[in-house]
């Protein structure tokens, strides 16, 4: 029983990370049809920004300062990417993707140049480093922080999308971008906004990934990105709840398969992806194919 709870908590903690990365990717793709290969780099930059702050200011205060820094770093980098790289290439969709591929290669290499290839260790405040007792299972506190952060983001994004004018524009843009532009709405501002939002979530994911693993290295974001892609495909692009459900499914499947046999976890995710693609006769946005 306690193993079951531990596996579930670990799987959901991982799912929370996947959701933080995939929600931004999914919104960006849904609205702009850009598959953002630089998203892993946003995660890594957020992670290193947070680590640097926490390295200088110890304890809970450092963590409290690291949080806004990570979010701001991710959001700023993403907004800059949209303005400087994506925007001039609107007429060339394939080149937009290729440019993000280039960024995705260059930024982690730059991080490696500055901070070195070796992992940097996070020292957690005492209250976060311990475990919590749930029905006899001792679960690291960090996992609950991850899950809470993901749920908070899910709630906030839902509110933003359903209750605000900006959210309305984004939802309408996912459905039909040309129509929204034809109605006289400046879709480009929504593009920058969605990119910044996705970048902020990615920056947060960078911080939380560091806490989860206890260390950060330049390639972390990129390896997270691959599973986030799987989540985005499974959850149907542009759908937030779909992404959340898919993230939970991928995280849980991975953890439970890993328990059966080490390394089976990642393979099982790929098999899950292949099975869903074969059985689902719809395109990636959920429209009938």
């Amino acid at each position, binding site marked *: 029983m306690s193993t079951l709870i531990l596996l579930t908590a670990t799987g959901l903690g991982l799912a929370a990370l996947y959701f933080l990365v995939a929600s931004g990717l999914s919104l960006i793709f849904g609205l702009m049809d850009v*598959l953002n290969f630089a998203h892993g780099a946003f995660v890594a930059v957020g992670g290193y920004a947070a680590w640097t702050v926490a390295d200088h200011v110890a304890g809970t205060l450092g963590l409290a300062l690291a949080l806004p820094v990570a979010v701001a770093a991710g959001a700023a980098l993403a907004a800059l990417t949209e303005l400087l790289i994506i925007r001039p290439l609107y*007429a*060339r969709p394939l*080149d937009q993707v290729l*440019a993000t591929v*280039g*960024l995705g290669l260059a930024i982690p*290499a*730059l991080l490696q140049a500055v901070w070195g290839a070796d992992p940097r260790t996070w020292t957690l405040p005492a209250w976060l480093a311990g475990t919590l007792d749930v029905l006899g299972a001792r679960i690291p506190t960090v996992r609950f922080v991850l899950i809470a952060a993901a749920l908070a983001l899910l709630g906030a994004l839902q509110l933003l999308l359903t209750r605000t004018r900006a959210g309305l524009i984004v939802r309408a843009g996912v459905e039909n971008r040309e129509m929204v532009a034809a109605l006289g709405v400046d879709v480009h501002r929504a593009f920058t906004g969605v990119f910044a939002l996705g970048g902020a979530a990615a920056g947060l994911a960078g911080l939380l990934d560091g806490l989860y693993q206890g260390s950060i290295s330049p390639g972390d974001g990129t390896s997270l990105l691959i599973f986030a892609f799987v989540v985005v495909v499974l959850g149907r692009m542009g759908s937030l709840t779909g992404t959340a459900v898919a993230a939970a499914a991928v995280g849980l499947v991975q953890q439970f398969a890993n328990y059966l046999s080490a390394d089976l976890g990642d393979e099982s995710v790929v098999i899950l992806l292949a099975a869903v*693609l074969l059985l689902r006769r719809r395109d990636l946005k959920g429209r009938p194919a």
Partner: protein
Amino acid sequence: MNHVRSLMRPAGRRAAAVLLAAAALYAVPYSTLRLPGVFDGPLDSPGVLQLLAVCLLFAGLALSYDLLFGHTGIMSFGHGLFVTGGMYVTTILVNHAGYGLVPAALAGLGVGLAAALVLGSVALRVDGIGFAMVTLAFGQAVSLLVVSGSPALTGGEQGQTLNAGAVPAALSGVRNTANLYWLALGYLAVCAAVLWWLTTSVPGRVMRAVKENERRVEVLGLNPYLFKLLAFVVAGLLATGGGVVYLLLLGGATPVVAGSDFTLGLLVMVVLGGAGRRWGVVAGAVLYAYADQSLTRLSGSASVAALPGALRGPLQQPLFLLGVCFVAVVFFLPGGLATLPARLRASKTRVGHGVRTRNGRRAQRAGSRHSGLSADASATQPRSPIRRSAPQAGPNVLPGHNAASSTGAAEEGVTPHG
């Protein structure tokens, strides 16, 4: 005047240029020429030959990737898994099952063929971005299998040295680097020949058409899925062969080829040189492979070590420089290095006559690059085969005669079916 002459350049002259290039490349190990600043020693020294051999191997791999990306318009992020397959199946059979090198390599090719058929038939059920993500996931699965699956078989993160006893004497040892160089050259020749043969055949023309407008191919009563699968399988098989050659060049298997960076590297080479343009792709791959290897070497040199820290760090990261160059090429040189001569000539002509613009050419290129990912874009993009194939674009279109004429041929080859 110049453009009229090159417009009428006969096929014979192109063949002569290919033969001349092949002969020059073949003769490199006999040359003692020194190129200071480019290579450390004379051309026939083992170090330089090894570097050149890797460049040629990557040129072949990039050509195989271009069959997918440049000619058929599908973006795969799992190409490296075939290289990995060829490399590791051969190594494991030689080291752990006692096979000879040739039977092991043939078995590797067989596994590559089967994997390409299975993965291709699954992954091609989704289009564009979905396909890219699915192949990325497959590549990741193979990467994990190699790195942490069963270290006893694969050697884990360290890779595995190929059992020296199984390698023929002619292909081992520093003194025989020239043979390895010729092996890599032969691989490039095979890739180039297969690509040339396939792209000029009828299925190859349909592949071109799938790239330009998949829906139209469907309307013509052809099944794009089968042609995409054919391209995927041929490219996968070529990449598997490349894995075997790479194994011999390195003397062992390395998990680097399984990483996503490896496949992204192939994509960068193709885009850098010019997708769908053979000489461009070869040039892009050779440049990338050369830069990747010599930047690593350069970063250890005294001149870089003397730089201040803020400059030195990024310069020691080949991927940083390559990534930045890649973004720059995507931005300022759409169509890649292969369009460079045309651009230079166009700007010269424009100065001379004051009337010619290269906008037409640009718009045309941009249009043709839409189709790869978004079905909506290709559906709304008006396409006129007449405008594309007609030589009216004048001097600007010339150096791209390869691409321009084969695109025209693709359209012509398909239209009669309708």
